[in-house]
């Protein structure tokens, strides 16, 4: 590959991987069985698009199944969201280009719930931090954060340099978190992620959770992981008795002593909710996104929204994958949701929606209410004031325009 017999794109991909591996002191490569990459016009820009076009023109093809993360355009909603036609055209060209390289443009950030569930010890190369932390922690698979160009390189070469979470030494716990909180709602799990992540902003910090009161659901672990990765840049956690590499506390730490022991009780969770403030502006935007909603979350939202209407002057957005939306339609959940006036977008994440800054100004949005602690963190980049609330509270706010606290 380095000699160029599989073309220039593959040669450059391996060179990139060699340099990254050298940086982190990797001694070898490991083969990967699955790749998940972020690549859309909002994050790539024109330069990234040109790079991809050159790679596609050279005839490069993915050596391993490679899927795409959520993107910035739902083509059915371009008009209603007044997105830029030129950028939308570029997004279409980009998708065509990825397909020429044999990339599966599935456009979802919940691939671990809907597309591929790696097994214990399986090496993968995933992008979107939420997918990586889920793979490492819940499945016991092995991945680093793979940014767009790095994931594409892994797709082309079928391997990654062995550093970070591919190695046993980085997978052991580094500190302990005793969970005393009730954690009844998805947003509570995200709040835990905010508390623990903010206090330990380090890719190589691995929290070990103990004391969990009941077996958490996949969607709860999804919110926890997404928030840990977002606030703490973390790529892995253990939960004793829940995750596969933590049958016991001792096993989770692998012989190490916890660097610190912290406790998260109801009081800490309540403080998280109390830390958000409307700043005297209207509560006219509620968003369920980041990560996309699973079918079970869609069912829950349908039940909460059944027979209600989104408040006049307010908007409610929900993002999910194409597959989940299709199933939700068949099952009647979609109708229950859309009848309220809510907008369900597929294949996108609200955070990277093309034209979001312009949309915010045009629609007079200042506050964004969500049950996703991750979204509440990252969307500040677009100058939103964010407010984290529990799922049913978010629905109430959408339907009344009033806060609950």
């Amino acid at each position, binding site marked *: 590959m380095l000699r160029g017999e599989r073309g220039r794109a593959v040669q450059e991909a391996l060179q*990139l991987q060699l*340099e*990254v591996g*050298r*940086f*982190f*002191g990797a001694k070898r490569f490991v083969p990967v069985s699955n790749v998940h990459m*972020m*690549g859309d016009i909002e*994050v*790539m*820009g*024109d*330069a*990234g698009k040109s*790079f991809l076009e050159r790679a596609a023109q050279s005839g490069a093809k993915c050596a391993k199944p490679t899927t795409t*993360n959520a993107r910035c355009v739902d083509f059915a909603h371009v008009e209603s969201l007044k997105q830029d036609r030129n950028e939308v055209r570029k997004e279409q060209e980009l998708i065509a280009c990825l397909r020429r390289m044999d990339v599966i443009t599935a456009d979802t950030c919940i691939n671990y719930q809907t597309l591929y569930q790696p097994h214990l010890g399986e090496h993968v190369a995933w*992008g*979107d*931090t939420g997918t990586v932390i889920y793979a490492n922690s819940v499945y016991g698979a092995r991945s*680093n*954060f*793979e*940014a*767009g*160009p*790095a994931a594409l390189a892994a797709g082309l070469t079928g391997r990654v340099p062995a*550093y*970070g979470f591919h190695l046993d030494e980085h997978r052991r716990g580094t500190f302990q978190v005793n969970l005393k909180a009730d954690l009844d709602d998805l947003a509570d799990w995200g709040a835990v992620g905010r508390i623990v992540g903010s206090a330990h*902003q*380090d*890719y190589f910090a691995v929290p070990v959770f103990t004391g969990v009161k009941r077996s958490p659901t996949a969607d709860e672990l999804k919110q926890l992981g997404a928030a840990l*990765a*977002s606030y703490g*840049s973390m*790529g892995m956690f253990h939960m004793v008795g829940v995750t596969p590499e933590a049958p016991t506390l001792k096993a989770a730490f692998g012989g190490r002593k916890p660097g610190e022991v912290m406790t998260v009780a109801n009081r800490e969770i309540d403080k998280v909710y109390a830390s958000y403030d409307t700043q005297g502006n209207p509560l006219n935007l509620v968003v369920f996104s980041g990560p996309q909603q699973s079918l079970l979350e869609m069912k829950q939202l349908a039940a909460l929204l059944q027979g209600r209407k989104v408040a006049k002057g307010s908007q409610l957005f929900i993002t999910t994958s194409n597959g989940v939306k299709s199933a939700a339609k068949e099952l009647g959940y979609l109708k229950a949701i859309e009848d309220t006036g809510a907008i369900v977008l597929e294949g996108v994440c609200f955070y*990277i929606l093309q034209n979001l800054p312009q949309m915010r100004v045009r629609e007079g949005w200042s506050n964004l209410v969500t049950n996703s602690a991750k979204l509440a963190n*990252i969307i*500040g*980049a677009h*100058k939103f004031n964010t407010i984290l609330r529990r799922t049913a509270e978010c629905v109430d706010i959408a339907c009344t325009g009033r806060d609950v606290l």
Partner: protein
Amino acid sequence: MKAAKPIRLKRAFGPVVEGEALVSTEGFSPRYDLDRWSGLISRPGHALEGHNIRDKILITPSAKGGIAAGWAFYDIRAKGIAPKAFVFGVTNPVMVQGAVFAGITITEGWSASPYNLIRTGDIVRVDPARKTLTLISRQKARGYALHGKG
């Protein structure tokens, strides 16, 4: 001025670069903090709000942000607003992959805190092969006093 002892860097990639330091006490994300059209640090309240990263050597304690940052360095390099180097205290693979892809010098870890030695505007050199960060000359305009012994 007496030559300052170089700060040792733990890991490094890229060509040797020399330029004006831009020193931040706060972490950095090209997605959360940066206006990716002008190079200005735009997030309200960021320690470097209003500074431009173009051609600077950005010294920052940590990396923030997710996977999307990976394409962002290539994008800002193509737009001509990239810094000459990123000097991180701790970073994550996304920043490294992004910088390597864009061909921008990047380093992680330091033997001594650069905050006592280097101020915004000072001229510094990053040598990835030798894993060193060296103060070349003090910024003159504002006449900062030197904290360390130099």
